């Protein structure tokens, strides 16, 4: 039999967007240490349902660290303190028997709470919609190999494109800034020759949408980078700053 843990959970409960939330305490007993953090919540929820209580609502889907759905702040850190993982990839063997674990939603004004630990991250979609794409009509593309791209550029683009849009950057930021998310997209497309025609238009539109959504500003603490499950670098933020400065000047002066 594998090792089992007994834990105390302090969980944020909130019935709906409008209602007030509160922290509630639940025991989590006999948790196998091989279980993932979300599986631990599954076990707790099974118990709650059988007792006739409301289960803890949380967002999750792929449970392999790629969809970006899971969004828990564990002991004050989005996705928990283990680096480079999402909550679903965090395993209970990282905890010790008797631990008290605080579980809260990703907190930001721009991410209103839907229920308990589920937040509305549609602001991210609106930012992408404002310009986070290359406008190419289906069927109009030239042969894929007609435009060689230096491997280093393709790799840098990929590093930025690895973003899963989970929002941990916002949740970890003392200012709830979305700069890492936005810059990852600006940098992904900006590294590629295909992304050049819309490069300036893109950065202006995305930054303006980001501001309009009510995210805070970057104070260069790089908490985002540390919390990012895909370890996306804050260097992309510098790149976006530069792109924005150039584009804004050009927009006004040229």
């Amino acid at each position, binding site marked *: 039999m594998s090792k089992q843990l007994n834990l105390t959970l302090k969980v944020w409960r909130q019935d709906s967007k409008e209602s007030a939330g509160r922290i509630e305490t639940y025991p989590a007993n006999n948790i196998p240490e091989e279980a993932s953090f979300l599986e631990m919540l599954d076990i707790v929820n099974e118990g709650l349902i059988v007792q006739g209580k409301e289960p803890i609502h949380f967002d999750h889907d792929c449970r392999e660290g790629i969809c970006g759905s899971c969004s828990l702040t564990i002991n004050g850190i989005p996705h928990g303190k283990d680096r480079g993982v999402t909550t679903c990839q965090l395993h209970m063997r990282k905890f010790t028997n008797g631990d008290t674990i605080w579980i809260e939603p990703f907190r930001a004004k721009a991410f209103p709470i839907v229920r308990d630990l589920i937040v509305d991250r549609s602001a991210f979609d609106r930012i992408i919609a404002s310009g986070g794409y290359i406008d190419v009509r289906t069927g109009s593309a030239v042969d894929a190999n007609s435009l060689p791209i230096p491997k280093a550029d393709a790799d840098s683009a990929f590093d930025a494109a690895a973003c899963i849009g989970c929002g941990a950057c916002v949740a970890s930021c003392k200012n709830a800034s979305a700069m890492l998310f936005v810059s990852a997209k600006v940098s992904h497309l900006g590294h590629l020759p295909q992304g050049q025609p819309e490069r300036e238009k893109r950065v202006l539109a995305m930054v303006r949408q980001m501001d309009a959504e009510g995210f805070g500003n970057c104070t260069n603490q790089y908490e985002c980078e540390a919390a990012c499950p895909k370890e996306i670098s804050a260097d992309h933020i510098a790149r976006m700053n530069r792109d924005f*400065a150039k584009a804004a000047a050009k927009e006004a002066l040229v």
Partner: protein
Amino acid sequence: MNALSRCLCSYWSSSIGKKLVVALTGLALVLFLAGHLTGNLLVFVGQKAFNDYAELLHHALHGAGVWIARIGLLSCVTLHIVATIQLTRENKAARTPYAFDATIQAPKSSRIMIWSGLTILAFVIYHLLHFTVRAGNTYDTYVDAAHLANTGLTRHDAWKMVIDGFSVWYVVAFYVIAMTLLCSHLSHGVASMFQTLGLRSKKSRPMIAAISKGYALLIWLGFISIPLAILVFGFGK
């Protein structure tokens, strides 16, 4: 002018643009600090060198130089402060607090920028009243005796003012505290400047961190060396 004002407006109205203003004004202030420190260190060269320097500052461009510098610095400080206060308010509004708050890696210096900045502002006001306006003291009456003897011309004895000013322990204490906060402010601020101006990259990352820390340390050591030398080691007495 229309295009330029449009450009400035578009910077000021966006988060990144406002941060650019903070970075550029910060850069000007950082450079000013280096100049200010270099001048101050002339204290150690001697009374004549220091008072020559003070006279030069006041007479550059027929006396206009100091005013241009003052106006320039004042606008930088004002823009720096107004922008950061606005940004800080936006930041506070964007965040909802955690019941369990934690920090992964952000150094303390980066988290107290607004407080270190406001303390420095308070210090700057005091510092100006102390040495520039010379309110509540008699430093205005100090005359460079050696200069008078040599040239027959009267000029202010800035050197003696510094020695006397830093002979009071609580003045030195406040000064050292303020310089320590300035050091903290710079250690985060200088590196941030590179980031905001988009000059930071994977490869330059460690270098920028080192420059930022090194510069902050240099400024701190440089500025506190004068009052400490005077108060503790009795320099100039």
